[in-house]
Structure formats: C-alpha cells, structure tokens
C-alpha cells in the first residue's frame, strides 16, 4: 500500500501547489512555490501524462517571473474590470446564471458539501468556489487518503478515492476545461498560460486516474 500512499502524497502536493499558484501573487507565495517545486523532484512525475505541462510551468518558475508583472497579469485575467473579466476563477461563473440568486444558491450548496467533508471556510480564504479553494479541498482529500494508505486502511483509502472522484466529476472536471480555454484565449503565453495548461492537464488526468485506480481495485 505504501506505493499508493506515495502517489497520494504527490497528488496532495500538486493540488496545493497549483492552488497556491492560482491565488493572487505575492512575494511570500512566489517564494513558497519556488521552494516547494523541489518537493516534486524525485517523485517521478514523468510517469503521468501531465508531466510535460509540469515541466513547462517549472521552467517558468525557474525563470523567476517578476512579481509586479504577475500582479498586473493576475488582475487583468481574473479581476473584475470595467470591460469584464476574461476568465473568472470561480466555478459558479460557469455553472449558474448570475440572475435570480443562482450564485448564492450554488455557493451554499458547495459549502454544504465542504461541511459534509468536515471542512469550514477559514475567513481569509478565497470564495468557496474559487479554483484555489477547490484545489485545496482536493489536496485535503488526497491527504486523508494518503493517511489511510499509510496506516494500512485500504478500504478507507478507497472510500476516500470515491469522494475525490465525485468531487472531480461534480466540480473541477466540469468547469476547468472551459475556464482554461478562456484563460488561454486571453493570455497566449507566459506564466499564467503555462500554469493553466498544467491545471487543465492535471485535473483532466486526475479525473481519469482516480477512476482507473478505483477500477483496478474492483478487479482485484
């Protein structure tokens, strides 16, 4: 089971890493990203289909993008401006019409899901349906799964994988492809383009990978 635990820890780390990169940039976060990329060295990410997207983003981090230009680009892409937002980083923007309180209902629903997992919003966090929040939730689920594998509780780990699969199917795998398309249309190259490529490749891979692991466990 230890090999599955290692995989879960890698996935936990990647969810958190990408989630942090998608929060408004500041020097602390950039430093954290630069330092934590070494966590993935030796974790053989080349085993997975998203590894080429990972390498491209890693090269951007290596280049050390200047903070000020990232701040400007972040606001341009994800902030609410006079001419609208090229790509809102929140799920409700893609799933429900803004009128008739649809967004509020959607956010209440997703918060109920979080509470069912034992999670409550920590005040300073982004909106519950913000991409970085949803990535953090997946990171948490992967952590619980890894704990279960490490303590030899395979059944509990698989149950947790089921939760991950459902969360991906209901949320991230549904809206991330559309969100990614919009970001790519607004930023043809650079830090956020490679980050969004990584997000897209990783989330799509995760939805398939988690199901493949579950399928394999059913076959055994």
């Amino acid at each position, binding site marked *: 089971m230890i090999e599955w635990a290692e995989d879960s820890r890698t996935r936990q780390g990647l969810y958190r890493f990408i989630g942090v990169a998608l929060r408004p940039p500041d020097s602390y976060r950039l430093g954290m990203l630069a330092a934590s990329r070494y966590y993935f060295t030796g974790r053989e990410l080349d*085993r*997975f289909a998203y590894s080429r997207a990972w390498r491209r983003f890693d090269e951007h981090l290596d280049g050390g993008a200047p903070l000020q230009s990232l701040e400007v680009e972040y606001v341009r892409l994800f902030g609410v401006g006079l001419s609208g937002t090229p790509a809102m980083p929140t799920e409700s923007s893609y799933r429900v019409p803004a009128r008739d309180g649809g967004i509020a209902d959607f956010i209440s629903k997703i918060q109920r899901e979080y509470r069912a997992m034992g999670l409550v919003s920590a005040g300073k966090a982004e909106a519950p349906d913000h991409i970085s929040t949803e990535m953090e939730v997946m990171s948490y689920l992967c952590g619980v799964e890894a704990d279960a594998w490490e303590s030899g509780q395979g059944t509990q780990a698989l149950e947790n994988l089921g939760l991950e699969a459902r969360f991906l199917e209901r949320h991230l795998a549904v809206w991330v492809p559309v969100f990614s398309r919009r970001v790519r249309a607004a930023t043809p190259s650079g830090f956020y383009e490679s980050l969004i490529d990584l997000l897209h*490749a990783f989330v799509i*891979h995760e939805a398939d*990978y988690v199901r493949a692991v579950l399928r394999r466990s059913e076959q055994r």
Partner: protein
Amino acid sequence: MTATIILCGDAPHIDATEIPDAIAVEGLCRDPGRMGTVDVDPSRIVLVLHPGSYHLPDVQTALRSIDVDPLGAQIMDTAQDDAAILLAVALRGLQARASAFAGSSAEHAKPEFPREMSRRGFFRPLAPAYVAAPLLDHTICAATNGCRACVGLCPQAAYRWQSGKISYDKDACVPCGRCVTTCPTGAIETPVVTAEMIEAQVTALVTSWGEPIGIRFVCSRGALHHRPNWFDVAVPCSSMVPGSWLLACLLIGAGAATAIPCGDAGCPLGLDQGAIEANDFASSVLAGCGLESGMVVGESVFEPIRDGGVDAPFARHRAADVLVALAALTNRAMDLTHPAADTGVVQIDEFACTMCGQCAKTCPTHALVEVYEGDLVSLSFDARACVNCTQCVSSCPELGRGAIAVTGRVSVELLTGGRRDLNRGSVAVCEICGKAIAPTMMMDRIGDILGEEFEVTLAMLGSRCLDCRGRW
C-alpha cells in the same frame, strides 16, 4: 519534421545499413530511460523494441522525460524471424506516420493499470499505461440538431444523447476508433489515427518498396506481420476502416489493400463484421469500375492503378471524391448499392413527406437542405455530401408512413450531378404580414390528424403566423 528512429541495440534484428539514420541504444528495452542519452531533437520518435522485453508504462515515462508525447511515438516490435529489409521498409512507413503526428491534448490520454504487475513493478512506484481516447468537439458536433450517429455504433455504449448533447464515457470507451471514422461532422478525433498520418504511412510504404505492395489494415492489439510485398498499417480496430480508405490506398499507388478481421480468436469487441463489410464494399466498387476486385479481398498484389488526382484521400468526406476518381479512371458510369457504402442516396416518398424539414435540420453534413422561396418550399439533396449516416431517417416523424429512406449507394451520375430537388410544395403564408407559416402539406397532415372538429383552429394556424395570431 522527420521522426528519429531509435532501436534497441540488444540483438538487433535490423541491419543498420538498411536504416542509416537509425540510432541504436544498448539495453533500451531493459532501461528505456537510456533514450535520454540520444543527442538529437527527439520531438517525434519511432522506437524499435523487442516484444516481451519492455514494460509499456516505463517506455512512456522515458518518452515524457525527454519531452516526447508518448501517444505520438510509434513503437515497433521486432521478432527474430522478421526479415531486415521488410522491417526497414515498415520503419520508413512508421517514421512518416510519426512525423505527421499533430500532438494530443490532456483529454486524449486514458490511463490504464496493467492487470498483471511486472517483476520490476514491485520495486517501483506504480505507473499507468496510457492509450489514446477519442475526443468530441462539441462546437462542431451535430447532436443539437438530433444527430446521434456515434450513439448507435459504439459497441461499449460510451456515447449517450441527451437533450441535444452527446455525453462521452471515457471509462467505458475501449477505444476502437469507429466513432472517429463514422462521425458525419468530424467532431470526434483521435490523435493516433488521423487522415494525414495514414496517408503519410501508406505513401512512404508504397514508395519505399521497389515493387507494388499490398496494405493490410490490422488491429493494433495484435502483432504485425509484414511479409514480402505486404505491409501492415495498425489501427485501433480494423472495423474502423471505411471501404474508401482501401480504395484510397489503391489511388495512392498500392497494388492491393484490405482490412483484416481479428482472425481465429475473433475480435474481443465483436466488431469483425465491420472489416468484412468494408472489404466487400470496396470489392464491389472495383468490380463496378471494371477493375480487379481481388485488389481488396485476395492475397495477390496487382499492378497499381495510381491516380494522384485526389487530394487528402483519407480525409473525412473525401469518400465521394475517391469513388468518382476511380470511376473516372476507368470511364465507367458506376451505379451500385451496398449497405456499407460510404456514400448514400436519400429517397423521399412525396405523398408521405410533409416537408416538415426535420430531416434537413438533422442532416449533419447538409446533404439535405430545405429551401424556402416565396410561397414555395423545396427539399434538395446533394449525393456528394451524403455519408450514409441515416440520421435523417431516424429523425423523420413520418417514418411509419415510409416518407424517407436512405440507401447505401454509389452512383457516379448522382455524385457528379450536383444538388437536386427531392420534393417541392407550397407554403401557407400569413394573410396579414405575408410571412411563411409552414408547408401546406404539413398543415394538411395536421388537419388529417386533428380531424374536422378542429377545423377552426387549423384555419387559424394556417392563415396567420405566430406574431399575427393575437390579432385574430
């Protein structure tokens, strides 16, 4: 960009003089990571490996580590008894195919864990093997108009139509590729079998062997068996090969071409019939053109009937061009029917048809078009655009009365004759604003169904448009 050929240097089965640009790497099967030592730009790669000596997930991992998309890399298994000259030519084909690879997206990669672990797998982190899954482009999918061609043919029921949208279940998909060649609009594609890749491979094989050759489309699940004058082209399932692909091979210069069903063991998906039907259709076309039908069903290789007149003959919707080119070569006015024909002809029973236009709305290739001109409406048909998908038939509300039928048919006269009207009728127009309301035949049919007691309602429906009804 020409693909780099890297071969396992352990007990090489290929004479390096046959492939002077190939690079041999010792122990490549045992340790695929060694391909990282090759000092070339390896964005397109053909690997020559020994079957049973390598673990696919390890090879794919090694490819990613040198920034190669594993779905685009061609892997060739060589056996001791393969003749070096045959392998050399087959490699040229694979090199051309790999060079034509246009890249894949995140959605294409489908991870699968091997059922059996390799011995090495016990000591390493688990790695899935990736296969290429098809990807549906909803922006060009005709499901909103009612098309569900993929739903009907998928052996795994991976596609579902719901409220004008197709949903795709990647888990259920095998993937056999039949949806890719059957989708009427080309909305479904796979990065591993594109028209460009197949054309590149077949062309390279035809030009690399000194004599006329035969092309065998075979299932990639099985082993390839190149033999003198016959070369294999692997596809996810030979049932995905349309008859026009076989004929396209002949136009490119092959002396024979055939789709090979899975043999004695049978197709694990039960799709053997597809390959048999494609061969039979292509054979009928050849016979219809006065050519040797054995070119697609026999063991012999014939003198090529090369004709360079068709551009991109494996591309979608080029079936009609291929068929017309063949007929032109032999100067035959071919007209034949076959259930597996790549082109179709629509027949309308003008008494049963109400001109409701549902068939034209559903037709994913716009072979059927409904045209309103003043107080007349016509249903026109272009045989060249029809791909025999029969979506018009399933959408017809008057199907029970035999209003529409589609026959798999290749008629050179119809294919070259342009658009023609299948049915015409008058249109009821609004007595106030003069706007078209509906075809008169449709109003009559509604009257038949409603009966005499709704005469007033029908009179209102037939004399005023939706906007003017409030003024009744």
